[in-house]
């Protein structure tokens, strides 16, 4: 689903990001507010790493610290191989950052913004112009390059934002909520852009409050809530840690008998309670694919006729619910 093999990359000698105890407090009217409460984080080179959490969880604050925009209150981090506190200038040279708001001036043209951005990264004038042309082509913006950004559609503007973050060919790109506010088509397009960056070997660190996005796009992710990382791993690992896979078996009038034989099996972790007049049962297993043949054998040996079978994986929302006690879907709504 989300993996594009990147065989042209030798294993990373050092992580793209390693943060230890990163912390940020803000002064508020009633004392201090801890926006990020000491997080540890490792992002490998050339992976898409997702930071999933509701609004106000501390995603953007973490991102702004890692990209040198906001000095941390505590902790340390190596970003793109450089010390965040001691060498922020070196960090800036090696990272790209695309903020939530994008950061384009609507009264200038897309091309002018790209060339200007290149100049801010100290590219020579001619190189900056050539790079702008390249990026306009990559992101399919040539047709509107010389129009004011104010006339762009949401998707076009977001593509330009990302192009701006790539002007200096950074090793590591931060994307803050890259698809918030985009229509489904533009979102799918954006996902493709992020995947192709990944293929090209760029490390992408993105924040999102969309479960689908984290699931579809990220190699690994961390779930953040109230300034703390509450869970981390690949999307599949996270989901498996919750409940394994869910298998729904249609067994008509034999539900009770089926449950008897199955609950005796060691690979069945759990099952839903039997309801009267139930024609199907729900069981939880660690690995659905490998458990299914065994389930078929056990049922057949018990003389139970299996009519239908369906397997589903728990969603990241289940993970979030379990770790925080709240549903991310409710938060987002």
């Amino acid at each position, binding site marked *: 689903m989300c993996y594009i093999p990147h065989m042209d990359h030798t294993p990373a000698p050092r992580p793209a990001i390693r943060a230890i105890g990163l912390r940020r407090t803000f002064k508020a009217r009633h004392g201090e507010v801890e926006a990020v409460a000491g997080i540890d984080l490792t992002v490998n080179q050339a992976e898409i790493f997702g930071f999933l959490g509701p609004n106000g969880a501390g995603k953007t604050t973490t991102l702004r610290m890692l990209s040198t925009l906001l000095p941390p209150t505590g902790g340390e981090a190596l970003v793109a191989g450089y010390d965040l506190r001691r060498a922020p200038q070196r960090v*800036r040279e090696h990272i790209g950052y695309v903020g939530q708001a*994008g*950061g384009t001036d609507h009264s200038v043209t897309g091309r002018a913004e790209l060339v200007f951005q290149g100049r801010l990264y*100290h590219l020579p004038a001619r190189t900056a112009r050539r790079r702008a042309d390249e990026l306009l082509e990559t992101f399919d913006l040539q047709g509107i390059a010389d129009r004011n950004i104010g006339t762009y559609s949401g998707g076009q503007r977001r593509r330009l934002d990302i192009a701006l973050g790539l002007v200096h060919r950074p090793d590591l790109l931060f994307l803050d909520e890259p698809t918030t506010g985009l229509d489904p088509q533009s979102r799918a397009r954006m996902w493709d852009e992020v995947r192709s960056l990944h293929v090209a070997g760029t490390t992408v660190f993105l924040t999102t409050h969309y479960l689908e996005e984290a699931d579809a796009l990220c190699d690994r992710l961390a779930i953040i809530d109230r300034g703390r990382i509450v869970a981390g791993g690949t999307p599949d690992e996270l989901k498996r840690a919750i409940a394994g896979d869910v298998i729904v078996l249609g067994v008509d009038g034999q539900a009770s008998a089926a449950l008897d034989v199955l609950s005796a099996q060691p690979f069945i972790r759990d099952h839903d309670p039997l309801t009267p007049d139930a024609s199907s049962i729900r069981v939880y297993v660690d690995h659905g694919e490998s458990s299914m043949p065994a389930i078929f054998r056990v049922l057949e040996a018990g003389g139970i006729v299996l009519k239908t079978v369906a397997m589903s994986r728990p969603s990241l929302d289940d993970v979030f619910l379990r770790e925080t006690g709240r549903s991310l879907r409710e938060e987002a709504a």
Partner: protein
Amino acid sequence: MTLIVDTWTVFRRYFAKSVSSIPYMGVSLAQPVLYLVLFAPLLKSVSSVPGFPGGGAYNVFVPGLLVQLGLFSATSGGWSLIAEVKAGVIERMRVTPSSRVALLLGRTLRDVAMLIVQAGLIVGAAVPLGLSLRLPGVLLAFVLMALIALLMASVSYAAALLLRDENTFGAIVFSATLPVLLLSGVLLPMTLAPQWLQNVSAFNPLLYAVEAQRALFANNIGDVNVVKGFVAIGGLAIVTVVAASRSFGRAVA
């Protein structure tokens, strides 16, 4: 070196942006001329009042108008900065290795350049009406003009970074500029004012700017008011440029 190159890069962006905006240029260029045409004739009849400085109505009025222009147009820079902070434009620039000081200085120098153009226009338009120009006084007047623009733009940016809100910024700018303007002797010379008002106005740096400009337009370059004007405005300009740059370099939320 990086500072100079980056400042130039930022200056060029903002200057090009200003020049390419036809409404902005139209208003910027029409406004000072409008002031000149509408206000100066009134001054003709006042200039015979005892206590009014000599040298002809235009040589009294135009230097003051230039200072007023500096006060008004340079302070508007803060609005655009607040808008850019909110749109994430500033954040996008601050994440690049570009010099932090240059990011603010470049746009401040754009304000200075725009003001010099406007000032040139006023002076040019006032000559046929009766303004007399003598070198080197008028050249020094333009140098002082640039320092005033530098000062006012930096004050505006520092206030914008502190307030972060257009409405608050607008309210403060409007309530601050009028007293500063009245107490600078731009509209009516402070020599006409009662003693207590003159005492208050002694704390207004723009008063020294106005008096220095009037001396320079009279080509009295050795006048003590010229020295006072350059010291007051130049000194404050350095302080505010440094203060605004530092506040810009720190976190912009």
